């Protein structure tokens, strides 16, 4: 029998429907791989027993409704799952068992999928290498001691190592697209407001979005369709018709215009990434796309603005971790000392840095110089995109300025770590949808991705362009299993 864990999500669903194999067989194949994957450290919580029960129950049922019928799915441990521990990669939530389910995961289960486990991530999704998790570093299946990217690093590694058929991550400044690029997988950040944020542990509320991480563009379209939609519990989710991303998916992109922003050609960018970008342009030309040079003049200011907005929102959001309502509590002589010790012991270094930066930029006397300034810059960045989208349908850029790097390589220099997100952050500031598509390898034989940025709520166009790219690039995920 062929290895089911190697299949795409779409093929698994088809096969289960046609009774070529059972949900139990599918589930067992992923559990088998997952059980031998401790060296990758992708799981925080394994739900294998419950998943098997769900699979067996599914196989006994006569009618199999739902778009994700019978497939197990592991998700980033940032989504609240009812009665299953949800940690956000933090010690402070080490013992938190939600009594409710996030809207996005609820949608997966209502389409017939069930939970396989909760995947490691950077603490509170703050990181670009999955080295800030309280539960340890995640390893990239492409090589020992290599980072999978972050913050959805556990999700990306699990997917690339065939431990889950697909997964859901979150993206505040690149946390889906950068790890997707580092692991040769597809990752999409939807338009802000496309998916409900209800039940997702909050990092920066004006930037956070949940999104699919998959092996193929077809899987991505299907999963996006399942998790999209208005939710009365999230007032920032938008009541707009959810397109049929999956059945409307087409590689016919002839006549579309793609913008190439000159500001993304940064100094010291590896030659391979520039070449990959050119290759992508040529493939799209081959698909009948018109290429247009554009300018997004404020790009260089996106990352500094992000490092005001995101920490400011984080410092407010994380004020709730006080050792009273849930999570870790430390002892203290009085209430204030209890708060201070709880937060000192409960949060890791990177989270502390960001809370303190956020507190600083919002503190009395500094608000205008930093936060207000950042909001103005954010306006200019959004206007850059608005202007470009008057004449182009989507924008093509590299996903990251480098491929995966060694663990510890960027230790002790927070800013050099932040620079990883230079191509992904502008999209979050402008609330736009963007996808990273695996597109090739560098000299070190590590995967690289290309990013397509779309107009608000036009995920369909970037999915179609991605499909056109995928067919022409014919990327093979060359993962050698070394960790068993």
């Amino acid at each position, binding site marked *: 029998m062929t290895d089911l864990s190697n299949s795409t999500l779409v093929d698994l669903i088809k096969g289960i429907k046609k009774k070529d194999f059972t949900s139990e067989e599918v589930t067992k194949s992923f559990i088998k791989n997952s059980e031998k994957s401790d060296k990758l450290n992708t799981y925080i919580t394994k739900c294998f027993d419950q998943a098997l029960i769900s699979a067996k129950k599914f196989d006994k049922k006569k009618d199999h409704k739902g778009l994700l019928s019978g497939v197990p799915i592991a998700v980033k441990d940032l989504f609240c799952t009812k009665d299953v521990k949800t940690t956000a990669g933090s010690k402070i939530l080490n*013992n*938190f*068992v*939600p*009594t*409710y389910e996030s809207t996005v995961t609820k949608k997966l289960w209502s389409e017939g999928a069930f939970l396989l486990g909760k995947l490691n991530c950077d603490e509170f999704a703050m990181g670009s290498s999955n080295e800030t998790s309280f539960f340890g570093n995640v390893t990239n299946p492409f090589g020992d001691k290599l980072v999978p990217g972050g913050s959805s690093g556990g999700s990306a590694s699990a997917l690339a190592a065939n431990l889950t058929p697909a997964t859901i991550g979150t993206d505040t400044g690149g946390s889906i697209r950068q790890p997707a690029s580092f692991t040769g997988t597809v990752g999409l950040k939807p338009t*802000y*407001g496309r998916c409900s944020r209800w039940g997702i542990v909050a990092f920066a509320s*004006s930037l956070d979005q949940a999104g699919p991480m998959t092996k193929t563009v077809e899987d991505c379209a299907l999963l996006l369709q399942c998790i999209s939609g208005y939710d*009365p519990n999230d*007032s920032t989710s*938008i*009541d707009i018709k959810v397109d049929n991303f999956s059945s409307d998916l087409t590689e016919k992109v002839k006549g579309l215009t793609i913008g190439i922003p000159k500001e993304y050609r940064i100094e010291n960018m590896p030659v391979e990434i520039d070449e990959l970008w050119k290759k992508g342009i040529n493939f799209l030309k081959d698909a009948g796309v018109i290429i247009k040079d554009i300018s997004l003049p404020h790009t260089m*200011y996106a990352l*500094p603005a992000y*490092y*005001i907005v995101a920490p400011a929102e984080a410092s407010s959001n994380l004020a709730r971790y*006080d050792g*009273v*309502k*849930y*999570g*870790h*509590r430390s002892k*203290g*002589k*009085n*209430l*204030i000392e*209890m*708060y*201070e*010790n709880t*937060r*000192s012991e409960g*949060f890791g270094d990177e989270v*502390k*840095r960001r*809370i*303190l*930066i956020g*507190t*600083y930029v919002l*503190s009395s006397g500094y608000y205008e110089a*930093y936060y*207000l*300034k*950042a*909001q*103005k*810059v*954010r*306006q*200019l960045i*959004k206007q850059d995109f608005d202007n470009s989208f008057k004449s182009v349908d989507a924008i093509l850029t590299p996903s990251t300025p480098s491929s995966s790097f060694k663990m510890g390589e960027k230790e002790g*220099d*927070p*800013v050099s770590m*932040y620079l990883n997100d230079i191509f992904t952050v502008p999209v979050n500031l402008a*609330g736009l949808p963007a996808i990273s598509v695996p597109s090739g390898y560098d000299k070190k034989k590590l995967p690289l991705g290309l990013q397509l940025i779309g107009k608000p709520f036009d995920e369909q166009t970037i999915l179609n362009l991605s499909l056109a790219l995928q067919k022409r690039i014919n990327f093979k995920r060359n993962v050698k299993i070394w960790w068993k």
Partner: protein
Amino acid sequence: MSIDKDTVKHISKLARISLNDKQVDSLSKDLSSIIRFIEKLNKLNTDNVKPLTSIIDASLKSREDEIRDGKIRDQILKNSPENNDEFFVVPKVIE
């Protein structure tokens, strides 16, 4: 601008995070390098730019003012480090 040790101590007080001297030292260095990075924005003139306060154009939807949950005290208390079945319990505040 750099963030000196006194500033680190002040903001850590505001953020309710206790720090030891070693942490204050290293945070002063880290936060200074982050703030220097952020201050690249000063090169950009934004005098006549309206701040972007909401990324979505849509106005908030109104809904009926009705009770949709409630009676979930047990659920709310379930994850608290200390409670007396009715309330969260914290160290004594008023002597």
